[in-house]
């Protein structure tokens, strides 16, 4: 029994050492590799830079705003920081991270549609922020608020990488180690969608609007405090949208709100009812430039 317990003890020590070493290695790689997601990209931005326009929101921003087109037509610096599944908490963290790097933002465009009814964060942004949990107080605070496994992720070595293997596990670690190019080109931030929507594709907005969204209020106050011109907007939906009244409620609730939900009337420009395809994104971006006089 003694020999067996000795063996178990040795194995346990080896496991703990492995976990610590792997945790350090993964963290180092994510901190030093070329960015492969938008959290990493923000943290890699040069400090004290100036950005004319920043677009924040979910995939309805990421797949919709053709940044290169805005750059070409307006000669301004633009970033598309839309991220799949992002909610207002994630918009908040992106905004705070940008400001923490002393980046001056002249105008920020925030997609607020069904997102207004969510006081939560995206699993994707949350897991992609995990490598920086111990280094950035803003990320730590954000995860403390949004991550139910915060303590395990923060204190247990390698737990964050194992439990989120899908986003920051071995595969991503290898890709980052060899600086494999990400799917998104961050200078642009736009990720086009291809194909056309099925006629049966529909989108449904919530029936009622939340009375108050704390994340939204924080974003609003941050913008005011930092004198950032902010425009809230609703990206286009196809003609098969249900509960369109919800957008009208948003207009009443948010004074500087721009409604683009109905500006694209041709369903052929959509990949699905909530997302424009590449052609649609180009069409909408041109329209946006004209409408907002960018």
């Amino acid at each position, binding site marked *: 029994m003694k020999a067996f317990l000795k063996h178990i003890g040795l194995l346990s020590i080896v496991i703990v050492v492995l*976990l610590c070493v*792997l945790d350090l290695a993964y963290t180092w790689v994510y901190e030093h590799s070329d960015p492969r997601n938008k959290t990493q990209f923000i943290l890699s931005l040069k400090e004290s830079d100036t950005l004319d326009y920043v677009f924040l929101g979910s995939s309805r921003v990421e797949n919709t705003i053709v940044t290169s087109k805005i750059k070409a037509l307006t000669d301004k610096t633009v970033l598309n920081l839309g991220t799949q599944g992002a909610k207002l908490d994630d918009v908040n963290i992106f905004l705070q991270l940008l400001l923490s790097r002393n980046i001056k933002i002249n105008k920020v465009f925030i997609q607020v549609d069904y997102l207004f009814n969510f006081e939560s964060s995206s699993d994707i942004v949350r897991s992609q922020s995990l490598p920086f949990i111990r280094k950035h107080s803003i990320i730590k605070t954000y995860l403390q608020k949004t991550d139910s496994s915060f303590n395990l992720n923060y204190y247990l070595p*390698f737990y964050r990488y*194992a439990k*989120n*293997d899908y986003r920051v596990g071995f595969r991503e670690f290898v890709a980052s180690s060899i600086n494999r190019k990400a799917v998104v080109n961050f200078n642009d931030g736009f990720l086009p969608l291809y194909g056309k929507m099925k006629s049966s594709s529909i989108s449904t907005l919530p029936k009622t609007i939340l009375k108050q969204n704390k994340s939204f209020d924080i974003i609003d106050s941050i913008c005011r405090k930092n004198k950032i011109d902010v425009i809230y907007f609703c990206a286009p939906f196809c003609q098969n949208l249900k509960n369109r009244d919800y957008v009208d409620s948003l207009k009443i609730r948010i004074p500087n709100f721009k409604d683009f939900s109905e500006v694209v009337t041709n369903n052929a420009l959509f990949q699905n009812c909530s997302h424009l395809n590449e052609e649609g994104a180009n069409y909408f971006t041109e329209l946006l430039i004209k409408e907002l006089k960018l």
Partner: protein
Amino acid sequence: MLFNSFSFLVFFVIVFSLYWFVFKTHNRYQNLLLLISSYVFYGWWDWRFLSLILFSTIVDFYVGHALGLTIKKKHRRFLLGVSICVNIGLLGFFKYYNFFIDNWVEVWSSLGITMHRSTLQIILPVGISFYTFQTLSYTIDIYRDKINPEKSVINFATFVAFFPQLVAGPIERAKNLLPQFSIQKKFCYKKAMSGLHLIIWGLFKKVVIADTCATYVNVIFDNYEQMNTLSLVLGAVYFAFQIYGDFSGYSDIAVGLSRLLGFDLMRNFNYPYFSRDIAEFWRRWHISLSTWFRDYVYIPLGGSRVSKIKQVRNVFVIFLVSGFWHGANWTFIVWGALNAVYFLPLLLLSRNRNYLDDISISKSFMGLKTIVNIALTFMLTCLAWVFFRSNTVSDAVLYIKQIFLRNDFSSQFLSIERYNFEALLLVLLFVVIEWLIRHYEHPFLGKYATIKSIGIVFLIIILGVYSNHNDFIYFQF
């Protein structure tokens, strides 16, 4: 409480410590501890299921006892009937009630008669198919005078509910496991180490091989209409390794845990994908179930000592029953039937016991023949697995049809943001390791056993899938 969960680790450390340090010299207390822990383990899923296992235990204990007291054939037959009716009745109700009702209604509606569908909200108790068969083997073996009735109710209850193998086997025989509860255990370093190594190897198969394959399998099978030929073929291959890694991984952990407690369980898998024909495959796959059906269904039906026509009937009976045992769905029945069809030519040509030797590949024509046989058997198995994995028989037929009609072998980017072939390297590596260790239970033998086990632990940590909570597949059976 899954074997690959933190709660189970804590649970087992407590049980192990009490077992070897507190009750070391008291066999009765050790068994009582195992019984209580087994009920805690089982009740962790749903405490209500405990009543079923208790009921089966009490019935079979007293039936066994009564069988030991009577020599009258009529009485003995009646007592055996009680045991079979109670056990199969419970299994039938909890597992197959809705299936039979649904099909009954379907049959009538196909004749134009509408019937009221009165299905019940029945939750399938975890592991019911396993412990039912285990406890049935006890009463049948007493009836056949192969064993004597167990005198201690604690020992018998622990035999039925022994937690390492309770929910997914191996389905143990009373003859092998029950006497082990009466022996005073002494800790054996060698046995414990082999148990530990089996646990590590089982975990590797589950969290690295099975769960990685599962991420691809789920996407491919759920969207098979949009998949090209290569994806569909890989989907079937990945599922073959998912179910093998999952189930044999579970069995390895079960055997390993038992060895840590001083018990020996039977081997459930013996590298089935290196089989040279289907008959050999069934001697190497889920051995505890195959031998159960052989001993309690096939042989009583006459086995291979009857006319060829009856042999064919017997083969179909055991494969269909085996398929149905897996679940109340036509997909499992077709899977069983397909295996029977595969088996048939071997039976008719009396070649079903051709490969009883160890597998080796010589550098000759025979070596090439072995490789071809292994590949063909694997392909046939994969084809059958499509039925096992699909939701309906028509889904499975369409899946296979698409494999042959799509004719598109390009690499496909899946919605899990991975290419369809990405898990292949891992699977190939696993096949190579398995081939090299095919004469042993696990890879941790020889001089560098400790280093090898640390290497596998390292792979479990970095390659394991922990984000998706994947239950063991066989829990549903």
